[in-house]
């Protein structure tokens, strides 16, 4: 009983510590990392973020006529490695953390990209924006090889060499 009385002056000195969360702003510092945001005007669809993502919250898949960069917030661990690795700086870390939802479906964010089809075999292999970027960077690259998928390109290169000999 006597020990308990000791607490009373300490408690009066400290006062109320409870934060009024729903009415007051939560503590969010500058270094806080929340959900990421992909800028669709900058993203080329190279897939560097999907490779670095530890839980594979970002995934790239070709569905029909489009390539989709899918971001599943429910699996994201908010590490921010995708923003570090993005060559176009298209991924921005926001401070959003109030992400609760009733459906899992609401936690998905899709970014659609146009796809280039291979001129020989007709398979879809890369986003058109990434291809344009590579075209700008490699000036001496033969144009006819650019629109072939990696497998057809290999066959084309080999057949050329064998023909010359």
């Amino acid at each position, binding site marked *: 009983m006597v020990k308990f009385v000791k607490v009373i002056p300490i408690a009066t000195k400290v006062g109320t510590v409870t*934060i009024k969360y729903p009415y007051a702003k939560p503590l969010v510092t500058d270094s806080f990392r929340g959900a990421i945001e992909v800028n669709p005007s900058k993203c080329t669809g190279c897939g560097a973020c999907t490779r670095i993502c530890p839980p594979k919250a970002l995934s790239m898949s070709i569905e029909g006529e489009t390539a989709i960069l899918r971001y599943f917030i429910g699996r994201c661990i908010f590490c921010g490695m995708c923003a570090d690795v993005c060559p176009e700086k298209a991924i921005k870390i926001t401070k959003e953390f109030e*992400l609760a939802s009733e459906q*899992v479906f609401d*936690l998905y964010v899709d*970014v*659609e990209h146009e796809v280039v089809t291979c001129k020989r075999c007709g398979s879809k292999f890369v986003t058109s924006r990434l291809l344009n970027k590579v075209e700008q960077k490699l000036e001496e690259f033969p144009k006819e090889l650019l629109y072939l998928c990696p497998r057809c390109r290999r066959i084309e290169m080999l057949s050329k060499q064998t023909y010359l000999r």
Partner: protein
Amino acid sequence: MEVQRQTNLETFSSKDLEKALQRIKKSIWVFHLNTGSCNGCDIEILDVLTPWFDVERFGIKLVASPRHADVVLLTGPITIKTLPRLVKALRAVPRPRLVLAIGSCAVGGNIWFNSYATLGGFPNIIDKLDELGIIIDKVVYVPGCPARPEAIIYGVAVMLNLIKQKSHYKKVKT
């Protein structure tokens, strides 16, 4: 008693759910269920119950038995070993059965989504639970690794229909 319980199960319609939700708007009792979590989310749940966040001002109280609980706080990616215990605990919860899946493990499986030892999150087993006769009336997913205490309070508010959820499915074209 047996007959009454069965009829109660069958006749629990959406209207009854609404009524029940209105009734528990004032104060909810929560039961903490760990299904193979790394303890990060569990510590955040403890944070919520401390005087700093003090959820007892909303009437939220931690109880020791699922029979007394309104809401189950589920953490962890549901490992194979914990699955029988999870089913047992959820069966003991009275209707309406509300589940708050906390943390990215419970929502999407986190880095264990593809593992042989886990089921990869709560959404994967809802259908199986339905087959077993354990109907989950409402689930709210709270992402975060670990989920912030504020995010958990926000999730409870979404569950009780006090606020509308912010996140929606987005599809953007380049």
